[in-house]
């Protein structure tokens, strides 16, 4: 196969990435929104069709999780502003704190599932209902998506310790921040939905 020389007016691979990475992420986010939208609509349909829908009190841990994830979004955003001003050490701290808060969120969710289980709310089996299964399913799949965010945090963290970012090169941080904010927003929606509508 013949290769060709790229002319000046043609985008290089790096430029194509700069131009397309964010739109790719945003459209990916749309598909995740539709995925959870499918399930939350399913809850509404199931609730409407059921004569004995179980109203479940959410554990207090889920409220704590909400506070944690809001804080993590703030700390990560602080890091983005820092790197845009070329303050690399502040980015490192921001990523570490965000990572710890992210792991704290996962732990808090786990405590929430434990509490639900102890209160006799089961995900599967003969004692479960679709109301109880939905709570586990939706929260667990949110955490699965969050794990992707944690992986991206680890990547951004390692790269920031290797001094790969500067005020001229923030794309990786921006992508990770967008996804992380999205996970926070998604959780707030899911939390309010489960608390007031389900």
């Amino acid at each position, binding site marked *: *196969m*013949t*290769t*060709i020389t*790229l*002319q000046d*007016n*043609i*985008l290089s691979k790096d430029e*194509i990435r700069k*131009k*397309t990475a964010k*739109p*790719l992420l945003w*459209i*990916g986010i*749309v*598909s*995740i929104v*539709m*995925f*959870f*939208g*499918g*399930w939350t*609509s*399913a809850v509404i*349909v*199931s609730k409407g*069709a*059921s004569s*004995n*829908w*179980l109203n479940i009190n959410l554990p207090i841990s889920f409220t704590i999780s909400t506070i944690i994830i809001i804080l993590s979004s703030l700390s990560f955003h602080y890091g983005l502003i820092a790197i845009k001003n070329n303050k690399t050490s502040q980015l490192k701290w921001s990523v570490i704190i965000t990572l710890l808060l992210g792991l704290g969120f996962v732990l808090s969710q786990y405590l929430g599932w434990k509490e639900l289980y102890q209160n006799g709310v089961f*995900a*599967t*089996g*003969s004692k*479960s*209902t*679709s*109301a109880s*299964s*939905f709570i586990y*399913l939706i929260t667990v799949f949110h955490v699965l998506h969050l794990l992707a965010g944690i992986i991206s945090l680890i990547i951004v963290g390692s790269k920031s310790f290797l001094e790969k970012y500067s005020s001229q090169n923030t794309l990786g941080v921006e992508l990770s921040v967008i996804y992380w904010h999205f996970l926070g927003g998604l959780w707030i929606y899911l939390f309010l939905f489960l608390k007031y509508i389900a």
Partner: protein
Amino acid sequence: MSTHHHHDQDFLFKYVFSTDHKMISKQFLITGFIMGFIGMIMSTLFRLQLGWPGESFWIIDKLLGSWAENGVMAPDKYLALVTMHGTIMVFFLLTAGLSGTFSNLLIPLQIGARDMASGFLNMLSYWFFFLSSVIMLISLGVEGGAASAGWTIYPPLSALPQAIPGSGLGMTLWLISMAIFIVSSLLGSLNYIVTILNLRTKGMSMTRMPLTIWAFFLTAIIGVVSFPVLLSAALLLIFDRSFGTSFYLSDIYIGGQVLEHTGGSPILFEHLFWFLGHPEVYIVLLPALGITSEIISTMSRKPIFGYRAMIGSMLAIAFLSTIVWGHHMFVTGMNPFLGAVFTFTTLLIAIPSAVKVFNYLTTLWKGNIKFSPATLFSIGLVSTFISGGLTGLILGDSALDINVHDTYFVVGHFHIVMGLSAIFGMFAGVYHWFPKLFGRMMNNRLGSIHFWVTIVCAYGVFFPMHFLGLAGVPRRYYTNSEFPLFDNLMDINVLISMFAIAIAFGQLLFLYNFVYSALRGPKAPQNPWESNSLEWTTPVEHIHGNWYGDIPEVHRWPYDYSKVDKNGEYIGGKDFIPQTTPLFENETEEAH
């Protein structure tokens, strides 16, 4: 072509794990066609059973073996074949095969890009598709047979592994295959949308894009919005089947045993499924409509009539497709008021559809039409889009639908409006862009014979089905010979089956033409159809990056055919002006 080879890619990366959109396009095409041929053979086999129920056939004996004792298809295997035929045709041929082939081939070439936004994601998209195809085919061979609940896999049949033989491992593999398929489709759609939005060449504004690109763009958007919902539905089904949840199940007895499922609703699945399922119709149809728009304009040597109306109607169809899913569920005990709402939104689709048909006909009107096989299939699409669309008005009306629901009327309707239209669009696309795909020309005469055999036999198969449906013959039944009231309709089934056999043989013409031309066909000239769009400015043989040197700049829309000046002379001296030609003196850009 330069003989200087910089770095020869080895075979593996050139032909197998290629990130080049043109190679990925061919991979989608060939995989899609293989799946399509398998799906077609399945339909021919079960048409033998429907036309001559209970008779022994040598071919069924040879092909199905233990699925057909003494050459008579077993009833549960009939259900498996119907299910797999539907799944393969809708998803593997007409979604991945059609959209995957032409979006990949044409998006970078027609908008002037070196490749897709992410070649790597594009490669992954193909290989996920390949993997899901393999799993779907493997499911045919498992104990108990392939999934048998119909391509719509309604619970509880699909949710209880012990329900029927096909609800077991076959159903599990179906779900796994489809989950992988959805990932493939999403990766592809992401790429298509971002490439179109961000990598257009200079001068290629959104309203200078060929209508093919608009169609692929909107198809990808519908895919991104609706496929995730099918994934969420499939996951709930997997949990119900394997992990003891009750999302779709409640108060079920099976074999005298009470099952411990409470609180779920099988209707929930229908809502989620059809939220994808209806937009899926347009995921299948829009690329075909886009391809047709391009071909009809090029081959009738006239600008497309109502370019903006075409875009507007596609936007309207894309939007409406997401709010009509309830028309598949009129008989689920839906509130009649809600039924009326869905009837209203459904019938609204008739308006943009009629706009498109009108524009196709007015583009053809008084055109200097060149009847290539691509033109014929495009006009065939307009025909099936009308005749299949008209019965949609009956099925979209909640009061009328109840009479023909789940009968052959529905089968006739969707095969014509969705199946035939989409496959005609796909054939048209293959005949038209074959020179771009393989650098060689297909045989026109064989192509024309292929068209006439196909359209006559296709109407022969699906048109009589409407009469069966109006007489009340239910779809998906293994045989209707137990019902005396249908006895006098049996001859219609024989006729349909004969046409089905004929159409299957007709496709061998295409297969031969395709394979022979790809290997031995005459070399393609630079611009065989004298078309305006950018893909014909690339070298005939495929190169990495699509253009030597700079990407061409675009100065006009792609439909400047037979443009004349005040004296009635062709501007530029020919009946076409490529998009790369700057405006001539005293020429104004078409106010399209």
